[in-house]
């Protein structure tokens, strides 16, 4: 993508004013998407993201610059301007560049980029027909497929021998959203969005018909759902995408970008109990072909299975190079970025609460009065205070150990430190769900995950008054 000799020149220019680490990230990504509305191709797009990001560290300081002009003049100018932020004398001269091998964990033979768009359209038409077949009140079905193929190259140096790393990331995601219209003008939606770092066969073998029907069923169900009650209740959260609560309330505050500057509720928590003893949690970027997986991170560090919480005790953070320096910790393969336009930092990959011992059905049976959340729309957290909010897109009332009537407009609010301690049942059915997570280094694909679990008490916001 850029020549080794140019990389060498640029790295040395970067390090001319006393920087102790320099990197060049070169990216060329092809994005393809096609979207159907009610079974007809509404739009499609093919685009290319292309550019270079250069970063120079000097102890705890970082300078970053990017450009889509990858000529020698442009890159040398950029390196020069960035280096001008430091005023020291050269500590490192890069003499050579050695290529580092990457063991690709996401092996793919049938690349999505090679699949004729007509095949993708055919699959989307099937999804549409399934969703439409559920109920005549399904008035609109949006079905789309998007995939990206990113080739990137990293040159980085901390000493006289720089590394060159070449990597490819491929991902695809299917979206089906159904819109239901009620007689009174009420409109509700339901959706599914499975994704993976995998080939076309995975999508073909996926039970996309059942998933499409489910999207429509939820939309229909929400048409007649009553308003969610408000108050403090036990809440049972389903496996898979339910883990978004953990992602927000606990995952973000465990990123070194928050803990290194003591700006997280968990900054001083290593070795301390931060969750119920039933909770063990990992961030694992190494699961082959998963949505959030990668062979190496944006700094060229191999991804790991990092244990964050073991039996309720905080055991580690997600650590990138820069924040690791503040913490005195080694980077652990969690440094990520959306594209060359973002300086990379510690982020989650596939983050999940590990399986416990309970039978998920028994957890519901043992709950007298509460809320069952089967799907979340999303949520956000303030890492400093740990306060979070989540909105459920599919929820039910639990009465006498049974899942009863659906409710809509359900929001869960609380603080991460409290809710983790209040987890009193953990099921044995761990699963993952796909999402896109936004933070300072842009949007990155992440898996969230958990088994079915119960929070003994959490504030539920809704407009349906008190639960009786």
């Amino acid at each position, binding site marked *: 993508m850029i020549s080794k000799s140019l990389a060498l020149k640029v790295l040395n220019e970067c390090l001319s004013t006393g920087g102790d680490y320099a990197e060049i990230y070169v990216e060329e990504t092809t994005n393809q998407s096609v979207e159907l509305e009610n079974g007809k191709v509404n739009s499609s797009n093919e685009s290319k993201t292309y550019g270079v990001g250069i970063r120079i560290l000097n102890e705890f300081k970082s300078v970053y*610059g990017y450009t889509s*002009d990858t000529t020698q003049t442009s890159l040398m100018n950029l390196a020069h301007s960035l280096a001008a932020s430091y005023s020291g004398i050269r500590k490192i001269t890069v003499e050579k560049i050695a290529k580092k091998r990457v063991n690709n964990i996401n092996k793919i033979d049938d690349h999505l980029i090679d699949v004729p768009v007509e095949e993708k359209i055919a699959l989307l038409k099937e999804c549409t027909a399934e969703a439409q077949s559920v109920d005549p009140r399904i008035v609109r079905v949006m079905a789309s497929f998007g995939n990206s193929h990113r080739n990137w190259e990293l040159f980085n140096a901390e000493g006289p021998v720089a590394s060159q790393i070449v990597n490819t990331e491929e991902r695809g995601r299917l979206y089906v959203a159904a819109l239901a219209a009620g007689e009174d*003008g*009420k409109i509700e939606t339901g959706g599914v969005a499975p994704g993976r770092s995998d080939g076309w066969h995975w999508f073909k073998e996926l039970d996309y018909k059942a998933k499409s029907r489910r999207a429509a069923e939820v939309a229909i169900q929400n048409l007649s759902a009553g308003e969610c009650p408000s108050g403090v209740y036990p809440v049972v959260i389903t496996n898979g995408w339910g883990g978004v609560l953990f992602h927000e309330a606990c995952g973000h505050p465990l990123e070194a970008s928050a803990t290194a500057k003591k700006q997280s509720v968990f900054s001083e928590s290593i070795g301390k109990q931060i969750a119920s003893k039933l909770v063990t949690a990992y961030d694992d970027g190494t699961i082959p072909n998963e949505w959030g997986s990668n062979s190496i991170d944006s700094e060229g560090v191999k991804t790991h299975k990092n244990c964050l919480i073991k039996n309720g005790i905080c055991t580690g953070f997600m650590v990138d190079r820069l924040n690791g320096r503040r913490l005195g910790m080694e980077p652990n393969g969690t440094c990520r970025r959306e594209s060359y336009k973002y300086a990379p930092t510690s982020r989650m990959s596939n983050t999940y609460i590990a399986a416990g011992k309970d039978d998920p059905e028994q957890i519901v049976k043992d709950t007298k009065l509460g809320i069952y959340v089967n799907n979340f729309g999303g949520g956000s957290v303030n890492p400093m205070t740990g306060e979070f909010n989540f909105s459920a897109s599919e929820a039910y009332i639990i009465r006498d150990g049974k899942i009863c009537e659906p409710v809509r407009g359900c929001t869960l609010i609380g603080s991460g430190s409290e809710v983790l301690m209040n987890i009193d049942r953990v099921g044995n059915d761990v699963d993952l769900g796909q999402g896109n997570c936004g933070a300072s280094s842009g949007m990155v694909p992440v898996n969230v995950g958990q088994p079915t679990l119960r929070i003994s008490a959490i504030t539920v916001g809704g407009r349906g008054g008190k639960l009786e």
Partner: protein
Amino acid sequence: MKVAKFFELAKANGISECQLTVSQSKTTGFQIFHGSLEGFEISDDISIKACGVVNGKLGASSTQKVGKGCFEFLIDGILKTAKISEKEGEASIFPGSKKYHKKNVYNPELVKTPIEDKINMALSLEKEILAYDSRISEVTVIQYEEKETVSEIYNSHGLKLKDKGNYFIMYAGVAAKDGDKVKENYEISYGTSLSSYNKDEFIKNACDGVISKFGADSCNSGKYPTVLKNSVFASIANYFIHSTIAEEVQRGSSFLAGKLGTKIASTKINIAEKPLLPNIFFSYFDDEGVAKENKDIVKNGVLKTYLYNTETAKIDGVESTGNGRYAGGRLATSFSNIYIKGGKATFDEMIAPINEGVYITDIQGLGTGMNARSGDFSCQAQGFMIENGKVTKPLTLITLSGNLFKMLNEVTAFDNNEKLTLSSIICSDILIKSMSIGGK
């Protein structure tokens, strides 16, 4: 860039009409942390979008890889995407408007001010925030960013348009500690000129905002007269504006379908789009090259127009309102500088008659808590109680819920505290007769 060459190549490939959009941006930014310059960022970026009509269907592509093969990639993308399009109707490229209200809002002074001055400005801001009150424990970050953008549109009908703008954003995160309680707040200032940055006001907002959160508690669940701070009202109003987009209406997924010319909100509600206001959101043409105009959207509670691009305008037999936007290969709709008319009373005067109410200063999670179609929403909120006409104890971990359209029919008053928010909405604080607050 040899634009003519692109049009030639397009024609030779059977593309009957086409448009090329070139967007360039340059940024400079830095972060201050604990008294020193911790991060510095610069960028120089370009993106080229192309769209064209092949056999009556629209195709689109984009790239950042300029140089050899760039035009070929774009044309190949147009051909491929147009071929599979099943969109009804004959696509076309807008030739150009008769008149454009061009203005120069680019401020050369901003870039002339040396970066060292801006860094010193941020460093002294940090010092003064820390000195404001003994409970201020930390300035979590100060971020400064300056951006310069140039956008150009060319089409095969001979249209050439160019717009250049720049702006700065200053952001400070502030934390305060009282015993073992930590509270956080942030403040943002932005504009085309540094003279619009008022340091004293910035510090006061940042610090008073965080200190006032101490002792915050939930309140009893119930219905209260509710004041929404201008920034909160803007976040919610954003969904209302979205419902006026013609595409949503034509699909039947907007609550406002069939409501044109009817009363849909309190007579106190007046909403206009003023894209020609010379602020950081100024623009005089949309992504299709249609001239932008200021216009009423809601007048005394009556819905006056939907927002159109050329495609949706054709369906309704009207002219585009200059709201076209190309996004991800399709023609969508956007808006800028939405102006919601405020009132004459001050904030204190507006809340004086409230015996027991709630003042919401911040909300989170509206993105997932809002059903944009029905207008039902529920989100986490923070704010204060209003008792006997005065702002009293702070509130946290409460939920605010209601229905957007119902809310706009239950407006009691606006104050005169108009603010331009980063969501491109200008509005003041608003008092709603009654809203649901979830708490204890």
